[in-house]
């Protein structure tokens, strides 16, 4: 069992309160996933031409010298780097070349890139949703999209890097409730085309697969159609991709999903109780996407 949550602000007025609305949604699903949690928060604050890198320390509880890492990226690239240090997590925003940033981070050691892009800020950690949201001050976050996950691990280890969302491509973030039975096969096929997953988590394979399809020119709808064709197993997926948000369920609709739609927002969650506190929920159109139905929504850039 896991919990998934998505909140897309359709009106700009809602964006400053994204974190405030999202945190209760995520914590409402603690019982579905008490061992780890994570979320991708999308906003419009990254300067054009720059990317924001979401980094986290690999060893639990060990301090990372983010200042030293920031200096090293600046020195090697000659670009300015602005750092947002949240302790175990740090965001670096820079127009330095992506390969160079990755190279410096890899050489620095003990740090993983968990997400990057022009919009996304990705945090994941071990613990309850309330602990993690509190640790990183998520309630005050602003933005247009939040995609979150509460994890009850069933097939791979409980670590930060095994937690969701998985974000292998720019501004892509995937959360998954369920399990894939043919992920090893698809993992090998992705390896054949040069895409390697970082963990042995089954959900990461779907994220890498979607990232690969998007890179090949698919839109999100088409990429998810291929997921339905290629992936065997139980799944409800929620995916953020740039300005787009999508949900899809497997052919048996084995894993739950509820969507609430108003003029102000699209809110999705594994269980209705995560939506119950949202403003205007009593007048929202509340529905369950059917099996193999792909729903996508887009906000303006």
């Amino acid at each position, binding site marked *: 069992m896991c919990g998934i949550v998505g909140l897309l602000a359709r009106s700009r007025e809602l964006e400053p309160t994204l974190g405030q609305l999202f945190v209760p949604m995520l914590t409402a699903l603690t019982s579905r996933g008490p061992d780890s949690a994570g979320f991708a928060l999308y906003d419009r604050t990254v300067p054009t031409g720059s990317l924001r890198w979401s980094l986290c320390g690999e060893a639990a509880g060990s301090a990372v010298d983010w200042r030293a890492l920031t200096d090293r990226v600046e020195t090697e690239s000659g670009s300015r780097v602005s750092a947002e240090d949240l302790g175990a997590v740090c965001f670096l925003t820079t127009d330095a070349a992506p390969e160079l940033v990755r190279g410096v981070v890899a050489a620095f050691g003990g740090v993983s890139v968990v997400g990057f892009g022009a919009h996304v800020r990705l945090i994941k950690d071990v613990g309850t949703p309330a602990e993690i949201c509190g640790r990183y001050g998520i309630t005050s976050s602003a933005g247009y999209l939040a995609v979150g996950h509460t994890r009850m691990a069933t097939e791979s280890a409980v670590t930060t890097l095994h937690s969701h969302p998985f974000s292998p491509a720019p501004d892509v973030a995937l959360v998954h409730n369920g399990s894939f039975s043919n992920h090893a096969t698809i993992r090998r096929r992705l390896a054949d085309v040069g895409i390697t997953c970082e963990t042995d988590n089954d959900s990461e394979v779907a994220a890498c697969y979607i990232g690969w399809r998007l890179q090949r020119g698919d839109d999100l709808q088409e990429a998810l159609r291929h997921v339905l064709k290629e992936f065997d197993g139980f799944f409800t997926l929620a995916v953020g991709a740039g300005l787009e948000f999508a949900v899809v369920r497997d052919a048996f609709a084995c894993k739950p999903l509820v969507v609430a739609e108003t003029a102000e927002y699209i809110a999705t969650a594994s*269980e209705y*109780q995560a939506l119950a506190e949202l403003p205007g929920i009593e007048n929202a159109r*509340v529905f369950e996407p059917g099996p193999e139905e792909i729903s996508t929504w887009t906000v303006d850039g």
Partner: protein
Amino acid sequence: MTASTIQPNVMTLDVRELGVTEVNRRLRDLPAGASALIVEPRGAHNLGVGMTVPLAITVEGNSGYYLGGLCDGPDFTVRGSVGWGAAENLMSGTVRILGNASESAAASAHGGLVIVEGDASSRAGISLKGGTLVVAGDVGHMSAFMAQAGTILVGGDAGDSLGDSLYEAVVYVAGKVKSLGSDARQVAMDADDISIVQDLCARSGMTHIDAGNITKVASARELYTFDALKNQRY
């Protein structure tokens, strides 16, 4: 007001204030014939589960999974929608849902009457064991899956694979059937069927269903004993 017209006290239980465990404990303490009003359910699971005496329980708002499950006696009215497995394993009594029901409504119900005034999602009436399910609107895919005994009446349309692997439960559909599941077949309505549907409509308060224009679905009884050597398909 005379003594005979005084309504029995209705106990109000606030889920947000008390939590589900305490709400259910207080319901269990009620004597037969008592009434209770559950407020602020906000999608909470397991409300009213396991009550074994006749009670009149009203739920004001949307509730979560297994509403009224494992009950033997009470009558529920939910002024809202419900999550997965509403009235699961119901033994007797009624569960009336004024909104929609999520997946597996009335799953494994042995007895009693479950009424959904809106739509029911996938697997409505799955593994039904003798209970009765009436849905005013549509039901989702794989409804009546492996249903063993009992009756399902659908006022709207049925989704894909209706009645897959049916045993002896019977499904009546007033609208369209998108597709039948394995071993389900359409059978002719007879006079008994019409009176069963009329009776169900009367008991559940359905006025939009024309008992003379119903699709009846029952088991083809070809998968009761699966025989691989006969190259049976499933």
